[in-house]
């Protein structure tokens, strides 16, 4: 194919120099090219935050939605056009905080959407307040005495709530990201990719060096289909060890697979219904 990453390139990014988002967009574009997709083939929903600002830098049929609400918007697109790949790009504050309820329930439903979370532990766009994944004691403008709560563990939350593809990657390794994104898009069902993405401007704890030191590649011998093992691996986040790769992968019918009237045609394509007469019998 004559596909190349340039067809996905929109405006010039406005992210801080050195921000992990630059490599995320690079990894995403190359995974899309490898999957032979064009901007017209994909649907992307962007959340609000530094991650969501990718809306102007990446070409696609897209919605730049509200803070926290990218997942339900993506579900709506999937219900109407279930044959198109639907990707959600959002941040940790956006998806695990404001939109936490949607996240949990999207896992349950195994909605076939790919959720890529730029996880930097802070609210970058509002100048660095602590996010739900910030480490206990993290000092920020909104938590001057250190954050009281424990960090949220997105991997174990996703696995236990029914996600069928749960992975983690790191912006320090573009090739790894591209390959994980590709696998997530290829997977049928709810996919979470938790992207460890240092915020070079505000987060002085979870830096590139920090993740380089505390992360490791999941060995090829690991069986991602083993639920118990995956929970054990996911819980390593609680002791600040960060496995990189696919933590859990299983097969289960997706939400739209289980809607019998979506078996043949996409909702947007089907013929209008005209059998009102039958419905009206109820009212006689």
């Amino acid at each position: 194919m004559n596909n190349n990453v340039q067809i996905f390139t929109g405006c010039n990014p406005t992210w801080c120099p050195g921000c992990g988002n630059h490599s995320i967009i690079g990894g995403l574009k190359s995974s899309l090219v490898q999957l032979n997709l064009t901007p017209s083939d994909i649907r992307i929903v962007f959340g609000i935050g530094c991650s969501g600002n990718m809306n102007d830098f990446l070409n696609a049929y897209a919605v730049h939605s509200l803070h926290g609400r990218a997942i339900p918007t993506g579900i709506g697109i999937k219900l109407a056009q279930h044959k198109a790949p639907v990707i959600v790009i959002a941040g940790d504050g956006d998806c695990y905080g404001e939109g936490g309820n949607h996240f949990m329930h999207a896992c349950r439903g195994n909605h076939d959407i790919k959720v890529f979370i730029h996880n930097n532990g802070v609210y970058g766009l509002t100048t660095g307040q602590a996010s739900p994944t910030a480490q206990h004691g993290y000092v920020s403008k909104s938590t001057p005495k250190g954050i009281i709560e424990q960090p949220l563990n997105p991997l174990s939350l996703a696995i236990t709530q029914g996600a069928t593809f749960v992975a983690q990657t790191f912006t320090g390794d573009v090739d790894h990201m591209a390959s994980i994104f590709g696998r997530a898009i290829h997977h049928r069902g709810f996919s979470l990719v938790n992207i460890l993405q240092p915020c070079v401007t505000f987060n002085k704890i979870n830096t590139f060096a920090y993740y380089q030191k505390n992360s490791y590649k999941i060995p090829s011998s690991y069986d991602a289909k083993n639920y118990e093992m995956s929970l054990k691996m996911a819980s390593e986040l609680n002791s600040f060890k960060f496995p990189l790769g696919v933590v859990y992968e299983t097969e289960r019918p997706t939400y739209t697979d289980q809607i019998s009237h979506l078996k043949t045609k996409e909702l947007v394509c089907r013929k209008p219904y005209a059998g009102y007469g039958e419905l009206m019998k109820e009212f006689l």
Partner: protein
Amino acid sequence: MDVLTWKIGGEAGFGILTTGLSFSKIAASFGYSIFDYIEYPSLIRGGHNNYEVVFSSKESGALKETIDYLVCLNKDTYELHKHRLVKGSLVIFDPKDNSSVAYEQAVPIPFQEILDRSQGSPVMKNTIALGASLALMCDDISTLFGMIEKQFSNKGKEIIEKNQYFAKQGFDYVKTHAPSKVKPIFTEKSEQEQYVLSGNDAFSLSSVIADCRLYAAYPMTPSSSVLATLASWEEKTGMVVRHSEDEIAVINTALGASFAGVRSAVGTSGGGFALMVESVSLAGITELPLVIFMAQRAGPATGMPTWTEQADLLFTVFSGHGEFPKIVLAPGDQEEMLELTGKAYNLADIYQTPVFVLSDMYLSESHASIPKKRLEAFISTYRVNRGKTVEKPSGLPHLRYKDSPDGISERLIPGYPGVFYQANSYEHSADGHTSEKGEDRVEQVQKRNRKTETYLANHFSAPKVYGDFDTADVVFVSWGSLKGVVNRAQILLAQSGKKSAHIHFTHVFPLDKEKVRKLFEAKKRYILVEQNSQAQFGQLLTMSTGVAIHEKILKFNGRPLLPEEITSYVEKINE
């Protein structure tokens, strides 16, 4: 016969609502125009449920003060409603429960004894009562038998026969013991069939007719039956009906589907709508079509969940941060609900903005009869109009938010090859990219605002005037579900020689200043009628047109306004 009321009451959880609806359908099958109303506490068991059916040979769209037939399945029913009985009223009751019913009103039926004799379950008391009620009105039980057969069709022959048996027990008991109380009311079956629909049924049916393909909701009284009805039809209609985790997910899911090209709607009541409001604003700036069914109940907060009020008008009109166009329609009855729901879907597509169908408990859960011909006429004349929604761009590049004289831009359904665009919640330039430039901002704000002007010129309907405006001494002003109540009050006033007119609004927002003002220039006694405490439509009218109405009838105890309350106000208070 002018108007009669039949009312049944008993303990919640014992089938009163089903029985009431059966009576409505039977009355409609005899050619009467019916209107019914359900009262129930926010409980599943216990408490007092009651259902009244008003039926008339003329149009009826309101309750009336007095009860002609009161069916008491327990003692409370009599105690709670006896003040509405008059000379000539009849009371069906079990003499075991009650010995205080006046002799000339009493139609005692030993419900419990009949049940015990033939091992009936407590819910079958309803069937006996329905049989007894019909015996007072007609000589033929076959209509009721047919209704029972239909109602229990999925429960098997045995249940059908058992119910028919108890219906006949009630029927025969009256024929034997109270023949002098029988009046021939249900005499001839009407040749013209009538449908009996609640406001929620009408919204549901019209949504299907309008080719709505995605309905998302989270249950909330009094909108919940729309979710249940559309879900029960899902496999036939092919609509996707989704009960999401919360109202925020509901509206964003609907907007996602709308972006992807399908007609979408959500339904809720005030509290649930409060959660959706941020995304109403999102629909405004992304210019996505959406129909929002808002069935009001008595608030604030949890308020009185199963009671009626019109107190979310201003909340709806002003919902959403920032400035964007919005259309609010408030049907006056079940038939207008059909018509305006269909219109709402077209307007949402034409104007690419949120359109509200504003209902309330009184309209949503009450049923009315609609002649088959009129319903079929609506279906055969309705046309889906998707405005500038296209599957193929008319030119390239496709500028999603291109400025235009009517404020509306072409909207491409995502998927067309070689093209892409974003629906952007940030302010944007014509191509959809985020922009904070002053000139882009002004262009887009003016473009969106212009849609309101286009709507007022092309689709706003001025209020209907009922009665003869020129000769009227009193002019009532109302909106939404009060249509039938005020119209009935006009009939009652005319009977005592008082001439009135009624200006009834269904297109409640935005209001066309010039078209509306004209109706308020006469030297008349204008009386605003609303079911809220702050005269919300009055405020909106003043804000939009400068018209101020000083005399007001406002009711806000959760109970529906009665026509007699309007007439007694008019007669008691002289200007």
